[in-house]
């Protein structure tokens, strides 16, 4: 599995899309930090939105692309009696390392130039890469037709990025007369993008603006304790899809 992951890693960082991803992250984040150098809070918020937009989208598409492109190669590996577990997770780990290194290099380099503190942002970005890669692998292993898988992935991205928030808004507008803190709290955990954003913004002490209902968020998502809980929840988001994807991959016919 180690060999496979290493092979996948080397293969990916030679990919032109890898370079494109890394450079575009670098350029966009430098632009944000350069323009927002006077207003660090807004610059951070913009940087966060960049990460929340680009990282999941690219991880989904690139994960799907790599998985589907290497299907013939996987077939050969299976014929060589390499276990499916090793093939699947070797590929996932290798891709994850490659993409997160692109992310860390892209964002980290511009942060190094502009002296910005981005530890939490890096953490969130790496976790999001892992989450959306494993979602991509899950769907690619489940859905046989490549186009269909890609379409589904785009819909899933749109769902997490936008439609889910519309749902939250709808729920608040319809059930606004009831106490909503706990349902909201649970709903946030069911969307990794939202959870990542809240983890980041709660460090800016935005919970004060939620009135008394913000106390719950501050209590469980603020400070080091909150970051730990968030990281655990996001890790579950990594483990579950990749695990179910593996189950489907075991049954997959080539």
């Amino acid at each position, binding site marked *: 599995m180690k060999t496979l992951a290493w092979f996948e890693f080397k293969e990916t960082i030679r990919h032109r899309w890898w370079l494109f991803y890394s450079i575009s992250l670098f350029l966009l984040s430098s632009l944000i930090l350069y323009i927002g150098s006077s207003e660090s809070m807004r610059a951070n918020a913009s940087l966060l939105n960049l990460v929340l937009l680009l990282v999941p989208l690219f991880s989904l598409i690139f994960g799907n692309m790599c998985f589907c492109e290497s299907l013939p190669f996987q077939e050969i590996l299976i014929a060589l009696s390499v276990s499916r577990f090793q093939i699947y997770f070797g590929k996932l780990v290798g891709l994850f390392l490659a993409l997160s290194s692109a992310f860390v290099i892209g964002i980290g380099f511009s942060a190094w130039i502009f002296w910005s503190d981005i530890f939490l942002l890096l953490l969130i970005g790496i976790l999001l890469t892992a989450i959306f890669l494993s979602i991509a692998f899950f769907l690619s292993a489940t859905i046989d037709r490549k186009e269909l898988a890609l379409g589904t992935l785009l819909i899933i991205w749109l769902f997490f990025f936008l439609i889910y928030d519309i749902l939250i808004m709808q729920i608040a507008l319809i059930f606004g007369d009831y106490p909503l803190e706990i349902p909201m709290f649970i709903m946030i955990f069911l969307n990794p993008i939202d959870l990542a954003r809240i983890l980041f913004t709660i460090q800016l*002490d935005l919970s004060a603006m939620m009135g008394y209902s913000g106390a719950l968020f501050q209590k469980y998502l603020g400070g080091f304790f909150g970051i730990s809980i968030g990281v655990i929840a996001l890790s579950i988001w990594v483990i579950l899809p990749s695990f179910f994807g593996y189950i489907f991959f075991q049954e997959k016919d080539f």
Partner: protein
Amino acid sequence: MKWILCFFSLQLFSGNLQELIRNAKPFEIVNVDSGVYREGMIVIDKPIILKGIGRPVIDGSKQKNVIKITSSNVTIEGFEIRASGYSDIAEYAGVRIENANNCIVRNNIFKENVYSVYLAKAENCLIENNDIHTVSNREATSGNGIHLWNSKNTKIVNNSIEGHRDGIYIEFSGDSWIKGNSVKHNIRYGLHFMYSHGNQYIENIFSENQTGVAVMYSKHVHMLKNRFEKSWGHASYGLLLKDITDSVISGNVFFGNTVAVLLDAANRNRFYNNTLEKNGWALRILGNSEENLFKRNQFISNFFEVTTNSEKSTNDFKNNFWSTYRGYDLDKDNVGDQPFRPMKIFGLWVAKFPELVVLLGSPIVEFLEIAERVLPILTPINLLDSAPLIRRPS
């Protein structure tokens, strides 16, 4: 041996401050040497000037008032006054001035008092250059820094007040002049006044008070060039106006508060030249507030500019600068050609359903704003600035 002698002499010495006052003739200057006077409940019942040389300490040992002034024309200067008593039924202070006029409290340090300076039915008093601080834990067991009850024409100038319940509390007291004070870290309000008409607040700094500044049930108040900052919490306001009418709020800076200004039943007030920067909400106007005028204010980088819960607004906005304004100015007169609607639909919803703040920074909010720009019908009510400024007024 030397130490014991020293101790004894202090003890003997400290007994006679009240004696000193008793022996003084009216209008005499009484100089008090430095030392620790463990002697509370001092009563000053004749017009004297009590002057501390080398900052003597008067320690009330947590028994009742440290100094009580019942005569007019008394001056207290240059002391350190500490440890007034706590009681559930009476309000004991470091200096309590009662039924007396023209008193002066100047250049003192107040420490660990429940109430520090307490004026009841006192007129024309001056409280100047005092350093007032304590540590309060709970609202119920703590008192106010400077407390005015039924006292007209008081001047409160250049004091520094920290850690009380309310920094300055004023009730039934008109025509006060409050200038240049620095009020910080108080556990309830920095400034709190009720039923006090015609007061002036100028160039004060209210910073990091737990629940901001609250002014209630008063008319003709002037608040000029103050700075309200960092009242950030679950129920924090920079300035809370409750039943305030015909007042002027001008040249103030509101920075980093959860809600910069809340208007609750505040009518016919004028807001000029204020700067509201980096607050959660810049203005929250409840429906019962009418005919307020907002002119030449600057709204910069607030999460939400204005929210109100009324269908029709009679509040007037004109010539304000809004950092989120996206209009154009064809004739270059520094006035935007399109009106600005400071109230956004998301801001309205968040005011109603605070849980929605979890969506702050979500792309959905941007989408809503774009939708509002394309379809102005989405914007809830006709609250608008008809002539917004393009550049920040200087």
